[in-house]
Structure formats: structure tokens, C-alpha cells
């Protein structure tokens, strides 16, 4: 199209201007600026092992001790007090402060699965089938003891609101792989089989751009109505009307550009055309009717509900297929302070089959090797009980000192378990993994040196991994 050509020429002219301007920047300085700010997006620091990410975020903090971190020896310690030598005066939340800390062993059974022999919980029958794709990390740890700062931390690398989120960093650092869809899409789930007692609050900051330009922020798809806000033409406007209107609108904008000279007008024209294309590309993306029946079925019965975690997993695969850089799927309701076994069973029903199907489906499409899939909450839960303690009924409080996550695809070793906690799943005993290490490792796989992905703001070269040293978890890489 003509405006694209004009835009392109204009861009070339500006690059030329930058190169030849007498503004003093030497050719070398300029060369170092250009890649960093434009071409860096397609020219990473390292050889990338992956291109895209799906982050399955379990808001509310799933119990590591009931799902991943198998501690059979705790059965002997039912209702025993947690030894002070283990808790070491660790702070607790206001909910269990000053109360007895009595051990609640998990009521769930574990089995070793696959060739790698990962211990899998009975609540994950489908994930057990793909145990050899999973790299389970049992030694995650974080700082905050409350949901909001902890979620903000894992999503943006800082507990303080206002920083850029993971997806925003990636679309800033790696640029776009497609022309018709956002680089970073967020899907929130609208159903929780585990009940809605403790459904977590989310905040748009969790997918915000913070100090980065807002074009990098996540586009949160809606579970009802337009998936992208204001995508549909208003009542009484069809695509013929819209096209006719845009033609005159573009013509007038182009004329104003000639008079005024501001290239921003050309950007406006281009974005209006992009909006028009999105009106076709987004519905195509969210319409699953063309998927083969066996694929739809593999995600489980919930897939037929718009806004279910299952539907969101299927959409995530379709997004990856279409070149979306980062998809973050939120599932809420993992904050099990009481009646944990019942609630956890429901929650796992929601996520087990769909996330297993997602891995298989990605693999089937040849996408898993280029896509990192991460499954994590914001922290773990206490080995000691909160509230009623029976063998088959208990609750657990927040626990930042250890939690579990899994990764798959994208050059991550499958069928292994990394890191260990002590006998009480309380403290990390071996190979600790901080949230920033997880971030650094994800970035590394995508070809980004986490220390070089920076943006100047408030006097600092900000980065996702913050100022503390971070480590790439080399042992989990293929």
C-alpha cells in the first residue's frame, strides 16, 4: 500500500539523517545505538533456543507440598509441632501469627512417572502423561509473604508497582513476529472449579508496561464481548461502511501530513489501517471452529466455555502459532487457607488436562521446541496447618521460602526435577532458584542477556532482573 511505502521512505530518510547529521554523534556511536533500539529486536545477544513464551500463572499460590515436592516421611509427623530449628523465627502472616505450627502431611498420593521418574501427584493424571516434558523446580523462593507484592514481583521483577512486566520486556527486547496481532496477550480465566472462596485479585500492572512505552503492555483479552476492547464496529457500521470511511479519513490525514510535515500523522494512518486488519485477524484467532475435533476434545470438556482455562490454553496455542511473542494465562483461586484438599482438587481439574493438552498440541504443531511453557504461582504454602487439621482436611498459609514451578519446551530439559527443600518443604536445601533466576533463564533461552536488556528510567538502567545478581540455571538447559 502506498502509505506503507511512504512511511518506509520517510524512515529511510530519517535513518540517513541520523547517520549524516552534524549533531556530533560519530558513526560508531550511531551504529551502537541503531541495533540497540531497533534491530536489536531481531538481533539478540545470544543464540536463541526459543522464540516464544506461554506463562501459566496460578494466582494465589498452589501448595508445592501437595502437588510437586513429595515428602512421604511427613506422614509420621502428623500434628507434630514444626521444630523451631526449621522455622528459625521466619515471619508469618497476620493470619497465623502467634499460633501453633502443627505439621499437616499431604493427603495426596505421588507416583514416579515417565523415563525421567518425576514424582507426579495423583491430582495431575494428564500432566503425568507428559512427565518427561516437565522440568520441575522445587527450590523456587521469593521475598514477599502477601499475594499482591509477590504477584507483582514474579510478573514484573519488583514488589513495588510501576515496573515493566515480563511480556512487556520481551516485546520491547525482541520486537514483533507478526503484523496483525499484539506481541503480548493476557488471558484471564473466568471459572474456578475449586470454588470462589479465595479467588485472587489481579491488577493490570501485572501485564503493564511500567516505564516502557505503553505499546509494549499486554493486551488483556476479554472473556466476554470483544476479545480486544472496542474491536467490533459499533452497531450499524459494517465493514463496507468502515472501509468507505477509512478511505476518506486516510486521504484527509495524508493531505494534512503534506501541509504540516509531522511524520506522526503517518503513524496515525498506519495504526488506523492496522486496527482495520485486526478486526479480521482477532476474530479469526479466537474462532476455534476450524480446529479438528480431537484437538478440541484433548483440552477437556471445559474448552467449550469461553473464558475457561481450557479454552485459554487452546487459544494460547493458536496465538503462538500466529507469532504472538508472549502469552500469559492467569488462573485464580489457589489461595487455600482452609479445606485445601477439596479446593485443590477442583483447581487441578481446571488446569491438569488443558495444560497437558497444550504441551502435546504444541509438540504436534512443532512449536514446543521454540516455545517455553512455564507453570508457577507467586509463592508456596506452609507445611504447618492453618485452621482445622485432620488427615484429609487442612489449610495452609503463605510461604515464600520455597515453592515449586515447572518449565517445558524451549530448550529446557524434560523429565527432571531440579532443586531440593529440607525434610519439611520449608527451606531450600539445594540449588535455590530465585524469581530473578527464573527470569534470567527464560531470557537466556530467548537469546537475551538479562543484564543487557535495560531501559533508562528514574536515573537507573532498569531491568527485569533488578540489581541483585541473578543466575542462569544452566543445569536445566538442554
Amino acid at each position, binding site marked *: 500500500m502506498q502509505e506503507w511505502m511512504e512511511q518506509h521512505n520517510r524512515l529511510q530518510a530519517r535513518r540517513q539523517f541520523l547517520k549524516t547529521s552534524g549533531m*556530533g554523534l560519530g558513526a560508531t556511536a550511531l551504529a551502537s545505538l541503531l541495533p540497540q533500539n531497533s534491530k536489536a529486536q531481531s538481533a539478540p545477544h545470544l543464540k536463541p533456543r526459543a522464540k516464544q513464551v506461554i506463562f501459566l500463572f496460578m494466582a494465589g499460590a498452589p501448595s508445592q507440598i501437595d502437588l510437586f515436592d513429595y515428602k512421604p516421611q511427613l506422614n509420621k509427623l502428623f500434628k507434630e509441632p514444626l521444630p523451631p530449628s526449621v522455622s528459625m523465627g521466619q515471619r508469618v502472616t497476620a493470619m497465623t501469627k502467634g499460633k501453633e505450627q502443627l505439621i499437616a502431611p499431604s493427603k495426596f498420593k505421588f507416583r514416579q512417572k515417565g523415563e525421567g521418574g518425576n514424582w507426579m501427584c495423583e491430582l495431575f493424571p494428564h500432566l503425568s502423561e507428559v512427565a518427561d516434558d516437565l522440568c520441575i523446580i522445587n527450590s523456587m523462593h521469593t521475598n514477599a509473604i502477601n499475594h499482591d507484592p509477590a504477584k507483582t514481583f514474579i510478573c514484573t521483577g519488583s514488589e513495588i508497582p510501576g515496573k515493566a512486566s515480563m511480556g512487556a520486556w520481551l516485546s520491547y527486547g525482541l520486537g514483533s513476529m*507478526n503484523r496483525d496481532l499484539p506481541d503480548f496477550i493476557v488471558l484471564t480465566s473466568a471459572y474456578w472449579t475449586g470454588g470462589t472462596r479465595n479467588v485472587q485479585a489481579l491488577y493490570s500492572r501485572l501485564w503493564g508496561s511500567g516505564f516502557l512505552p505503553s505499546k509494549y503492555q499486554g493486551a488483556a483479552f476479554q472473556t466476554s*464481548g*470483544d476479545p480486544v476492547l472496542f474491536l467490533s464496529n459499533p452497531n450499524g457500521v459494517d465493514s463496507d461502511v468502515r472501509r*468507505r470511511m477509512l478511505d476518506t479519513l486516510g486521504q484527509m490525514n495524508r493531505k494534512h501530513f503534506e501541509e504540516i510535515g509531522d511524520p*506522526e*500523522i503517518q503513524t496515525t494512518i498506519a495504526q488506523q489501517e492496522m486496527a482495520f486488519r485486526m478486526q479480521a485477524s482477532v476474530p479469526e484467532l479466537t474462532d476455534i471452529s476450524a480446529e479438528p475435533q480431537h484437538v478440541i476434545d484433548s483440552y477437556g470438556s471445559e474448552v467449550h466455555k469461553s473464558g475457561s482455562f481450557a479454552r485459554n490454553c487452546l487459544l494460547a496455542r493458536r496465538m503462538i502459532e500466529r507469532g504472538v511473542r508472549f502469552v500469559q494465562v492467569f488462573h485464580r483461586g489457589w489461595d487455600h487457607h482452609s479445606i485445601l484438599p477439596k479446593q485443590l482438587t477442583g483447581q487441578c481439574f481446571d488446569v491438569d488436562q488443558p495444560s497437558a493438552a497444550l504441551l502435546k498440541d504444541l509438540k504436534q504443531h512443532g512449536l514446543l521446541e521454540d516455545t517455553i511453557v512455564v507453570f508457577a504461582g507467586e509463592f508456596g504454602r506452609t507445611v504447618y496447618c492453618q485452621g482445622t487439621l485432620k488427615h484429609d482436611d487442612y489449610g495452609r498459609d503463605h510461604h515464600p521460602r520455597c515453592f515449586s514451578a515447572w518449565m517445558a519446551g524451549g530448550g529446557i530439559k524434560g523429565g527432571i526435577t531440579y532443586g531440593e527443600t529440607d525434610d519439611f518443604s520449608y527451606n531450600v536445601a539445594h540449588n535455590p532458584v530465585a524469581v530473578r533466576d527464573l527470569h534470567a533463564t527464560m531470557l537466556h533461552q530467548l537469546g537475551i542477556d538479562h*543484564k543487557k536488556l535495560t531501559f533508562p528510567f*528514574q*536515573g537507573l538502567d532498569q531491568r527485569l532482573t533488578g540489581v541483585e545478581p541473578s543466575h542462569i540455571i544452566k543445569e536445566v538447559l538442554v
Partner: protein
Amino acid sequence: MSRHGNESIIEANQHVKSILVVFGILAFPVLASAEQPIRFDRDVRPLFSDRCFECHGPDAQERQGELRLDRADGPDGAYRTLDDSPAIKPGSIEDSLVWQRITAVDDDVMPPPDSEKKPLTASEMEIIKRWIEQGAEYVNFWAFVPPRMADPPDLKNVSWSQQPIDRFVLHRLEEAGLTPKPTADRRSLIRRLSLDLTGLPPTRDEISQFLDDTAEGAYERLVDRLLAKPQYGEHMTKYWLDLVRFADTNGIHHDHYREMSPYRDWVIRAFNQNLPYDDFVKYQLAGDLYPNPNYDQLIASGFNRLHLIIDRGTALPEESFTRNVIDRVTAVGTAFMGLTVQCAVCHDHKYDPITMRDFYQLFAFFNNLDADPETGGRQGSDFQRGLQPPYVTLADDRQIAKLAEYDLRIKQLKTELQRIEKQSKDTSDETQKKAVEEELEKAKQALAKQEREKQTFEATIPAAMVMKERAELRPAHILIRGAYDKPGEEVGRDSPAFLPPMKEMDGIKSRMDLAEWFVAAENPLTARVAVNRWWQQLFGVGIVKTAEDFGARGDFPSHPDLLDYLAVSFVESGWNVKALIKQIVMSETYRQSSDATPDEFKNDPDNRLLSRGARFRLDSEVIRDQVLATSGLLNYELFGMSVKPPQPEGLWETVSMPSSYPRSYETDTGNKIYRRSVYTFWKRGMPPPQMTILNAPTREACIARRERTNTPLQALLLLNEPEYVKSSRHLAQEILADRSQNATERLAAIYETITSRLLDADDTASYLKMVEDLEAIYRNNSALAEKLCEGVTLREGETSAELAAWTMLVSTIFNLDITKTRS
């Protein structure tokens, strides 16, 4: 669509923009190298700060090699000699170890092998070299030295303008070999001024009044008219609310409702009444500490209550307490100091001379709020009203009288109840006892009912959360690594050591003393930071581009003498805000045309030299208000509680907890939904998308400048948002109502109403052709036309196809780049 397609051109264009941002930062020092002596503050300090201060800067903990490059003197200063080698020897690069290190080729020497810093470029080294050769003169950091009034420079061109602002600007332009643009045409001027000063475009009547006023001083009269409008205060307030992160919810955990609207009303009144800025600052920092404070002073002190706050139940109160105070001090730093003081929460600031001690000495002024560190339970009317003590109730006379009535009635009922209770005890007869018990039950119910009614009534009375000092002083400590539970050395209240000291006084310094210190003439930051923000409001970019950071990592001012001139004259005027704004908009610099040729654009890409009038996209609020105002729907009512105009359904539910209050967005009805955007309800967890899509911040942190992007989501919003389409239809119908007008006249009226401009014959033809084509489409598809006209009663002679086509015409003009842009 291709999975591995090339980066789109839109992307690439935006990247060029960000290159220019980087370019702008570097442009000043490098420009200087060609023709001027090197200045430490402008040319060298930014380089040292960027590459060296992390290890050789103000942070004593991290300092390497006993060397700090931010100052010349002292045992670690740049002139110090260690092992017979001076780090920097003025006049000699050979004797300066620093020079040898930065030019060393051996990677083990410099920079440190594990550094991620970009090495110095050849031209940057050249600057350092010339600076050392010219004598390596250190000057104090510009922003920490009180501003001084420089004489406006002599100029080659004496015909342009003799106004001081213009002389400073023209001086820079002449240095760069540029000339200013001619004055913009009158239609542009009235549009620009109206949008900048009131956030609304001029009406057609206002335009013709201005065009007809050919007498001397017409422009100044226009400025005065606009500054006197109540919409001026509303518009100025919009920027202030970003800065102080004003919102209608708590922002953490449940993100419950909170009620702070009296504070917003006070800010609007303060701007409209032109409250001197020093009082404006003092009221907010310490309004509660005036002897017998009036309501305005108390409400303003609510500035200290605008931080995020968690509701009781999960966090540790001690931790919440510390977070609140840090947030409060951070706001003071951003709003009044233009500094990132919060960097010194955990360690001495790496780039600015702000120590942890400095931070916690400020902390000590703000840690003594007489309130719980978390909001209370769900019971009671405070929760319903979004209040947490301390607050003041702002009842009018009628409300006071009614409350007294309730209290009297409740008192009577209580007396009655006591009487019956006594009677019940004294009665032994069974039948009688039963009767008395029934009576007792009735009395209890009556009392409960009355109390409920009082609560319901109370909830309709505005109240304002305020600052209140506890009787007893809370000690403050340096918190080791910023941890709430690791108090270190105790510190007292004091101003930061690198700034002029507070007045000597007996006893403990109060927040009021601190407020006085902020507005003392020798404070180098308060006035500069404020005038720079208003300059930014009027030109799109501040004289200091980083309006939120005047520290070492912020930008050096593009026109330092101009900034100082404005700051000093602002203080001398008695901190007169309207006078300052008027002074700026009266300048020829402000009045320049914003049209430019590609060459002119190249010569001043970001317009930092002010070689043309500013052109930038309007803010979200202004875009929405303009749609409402020009379509005739805007409700001009001032003040009051936040309102909820329509937004897409279900947005809050995707983020709220089931027990969040409120959980669902309940759209207001009637003409409340057409109030100005400054009154729109702001949930921090999910702010209104009409605002955030156009770069409004979430109000979780203090924001001194918004960015401006141009995205497809913005295009979708402006094209499809149902209320914007309804507004288009409303204007179309108003114009069509006059059946005596022909199509050309109608088009002209619509176009001028929205853009303040006139159409030429070619464009008129194009638009009318579009209307004709659209009308044909709608005639052929009457169902479609009727859908667009749903809910509208057509007037006699009107057809739905005609109204639909004209609605789309209005929408087209709303979507023009020139409509959403101030130029």
C-alpha cells in the same frame, strides 16, 4: 500475516523515535564540543554519572579505589593523589590516572570485566579529554544550587521579541543557526490556547469573537478570558492528580473503594482561585498543622493519605506501616523535589548525593500519622463510605441540622429503652412481664432503625481524609537495606544534607517547618520543578525533559538560564501560577506556528530548541472531553464525587476478588455520564480503558509526565467506542435539525465545531462524496441504518440513512489526526 515476518514498519518508526530520545540526551554535550568550552555540569557529569558513578560515586558502600568522581575535593575526591598519582590532574591528561584508565586497551584495567556499561565512545572520551585540558573545573550540580536570574542574552535578531523568554530561546536558536517560526494563525492560536488552558476546544462563537476582535491586545484578552474560566482549574488539576496518584480505590489486595473527592475539589478551587503555589505546597504537606486550620487546609493535608494502602487481614501491620511512609515520602520527592529519593530506602543513592540518612530523616517527618496502617474491617459506615479515620466531615448547615435531629431522636429512644429495661426488671407479674418484653423488643427495633437511617444519611455527606499528627512522636530509624524489621541507627527529622539547611530552631522540627523549608527562596528545587512541569504542559516537553528527575541521571536543561529566569520570577511574583502561565503563553515562542518542512524537522527533531510551535497528541481526558463538548453533550457541572461513565462490561470482574468492594462497575445514569473526565472513577486495579489506552497512568505511582504513543488499540477506541459513536450521532442530529441548511453548510458547521478550522472546496467535495456514498449504502441496507439510529426519534423529514451517513461523517472528523492533536 507471516509467523516469521519482518518487523513491521510501524514498529520500526517507533524505534526511530526512541533512538531520537537517546539522541536528545546526548545531543547537548556533543553539540557543545564543536564550538564551546566544555562545561562540567552539562557535558561531563552526565558521562561520569552514566558510566562511572556506580563504583565511583556518592554511594560510600559501593565505592571502589577510594575514588569518587562526583566531586573534586576530599580524601576520595577526583583531585586526590594516591600512590603519587592524582586521579585527575587539572590541565594534564598525561598525569591524570583517570584518563589513562579510560583509554586503556587492556580489558582488565577498564572498564571492569563484568561491567555491562557501554564503553565510552571516541567522542565522549574527547569531551573528557578537553575538559581535563581546560582545567577540569568542577561546578556544583546545577539543580542543587539556588536559581539565579541571568540577564537575557544579546541577540542578532532584534526584531522578533524582547520578552525575556523569547530572548533566551532565540539565543539558543541563533547559536544553532536556526530561526523561529512566524506566529500561528488566529484559529490555531485560539484552539491551542483553549486546549492548553482549559482542556476544551473553543466554540464557534468564541472563535468568531476572537477573529472579530481586531483591536490591539486581542490575544491577551483571550488569555485572560480563558484563565478566568472554571474549566481552567479542572484542567490544571488533571495533571496534578497524576502527580499525586489520586484514585478512588486503595490499590492493594482487595483494592477497596476509598473516598478522596474533596481533595480533588480543593485542587480545582485552588487553581481557579489562584492560590499562591507556596501555600498550595504548604497546605498539602502540613495543612493540619496551621493553628486552627480551616477546611481547605485540612482537606489539602489529605495529600499525605493518597498512597496505596492494604486492607487488614493478611499483611503484617508493621510492614504495611513502613510501606505507607515510604510511599508518602516518595510522593514528596517526586512532586516537590523532582528527585528519586526512594532510591535511598535500601542504600545511599548511586548517582545523587542522597544518603540513607537523608531519606530516613525525611521519613521521620511523615511517620507520625495518627491512623492504622491498614484499612479497617467491612463493618460500619466508614467502609461503605470509603473512609478511614482521621477524616473531617464536610456537612452543610442543612446536613448538620438533620444530623442533630437524628442524634436527638436516638438519644430519646435510648432513654426510652433504659426506662423499659428498668421496668422489665422491676416487674414480677408474668403477664405484665410479657407485655413489657414486647415493648422492649419494639423499642430496640426502633432504635436500630433510627441508627441505620442515620448511617444511610451520613453516607451522603462528603468527608475528607486528612493528616493528623499523633500526640507522641514516633522514633525513626535507618532501616537496614530498607527492611521494616531491621531498624538501625535512630535519626531525627531534618532536610537532606546536600540541600540548604533548615532554619535553626529549638525543639523538634515539625512538618510545617519542613513545608516552610520547601518554599523558602533559597530552596533550589521547588520552584524549578514546578515551573518545568507547567512548561511541559504547554510545550509537550519540559525544559528539563525528565520532569520527574532533576538528579544526576536526569536530563540537563535545554535552556538552563530560561528555567532559572522562570523559577526566580515565579517566586518573586509571590508564587503566582496564573501569572506564570500567562507569561509563558504570551511569549512569541509559544505562539509560533507548528507547521514545518522536512528540513526544519531534521534541524530540531524533538523541538528541544523550540524552533517551532509544539505539536503533540492530546491526553486521554482532553480527547474524551473534546468529543463530549463539541457534540453538545458535555455536562459542565463542577466538583463532587467520582462518576462512572459507560465502559465495556465485565472489566472489573476479571481482576476483582469476589469480596472486593465494589466488585462490579455500575454505570451511572442521566447526564452524570457526560461529566468531564477528571471526575471519572479511578480503580487502580483496572482504570477506565478510555483513559489508559491513551497513556493515562494507573495512579499507583506518582507520574510527572505521561508518555505519548500511537497504537492500533487507540485507533480502535476512537473509531468504535460506543459513547463516541453516540456523540457523533448527537452532533449529526443537532446539525440536521436545521432544515434550512444545505449539505455544504452543515459540513462546514461540523468541521469548524470539531477542528476550529474551515474547509477548502476540494475537501468539502471529498467529504460530501463520502456522505453521499454512505447514504447510498444505508439506503440499500435500511436495517443497518436503523441499527445505528436505535433509540433515536427521527425528526420530521429526517431518514435513518441520512442520519447514519452524517453520524459517520462526524466520526470521521473525530478520527482525524489533527483533531486528536494540539498544534
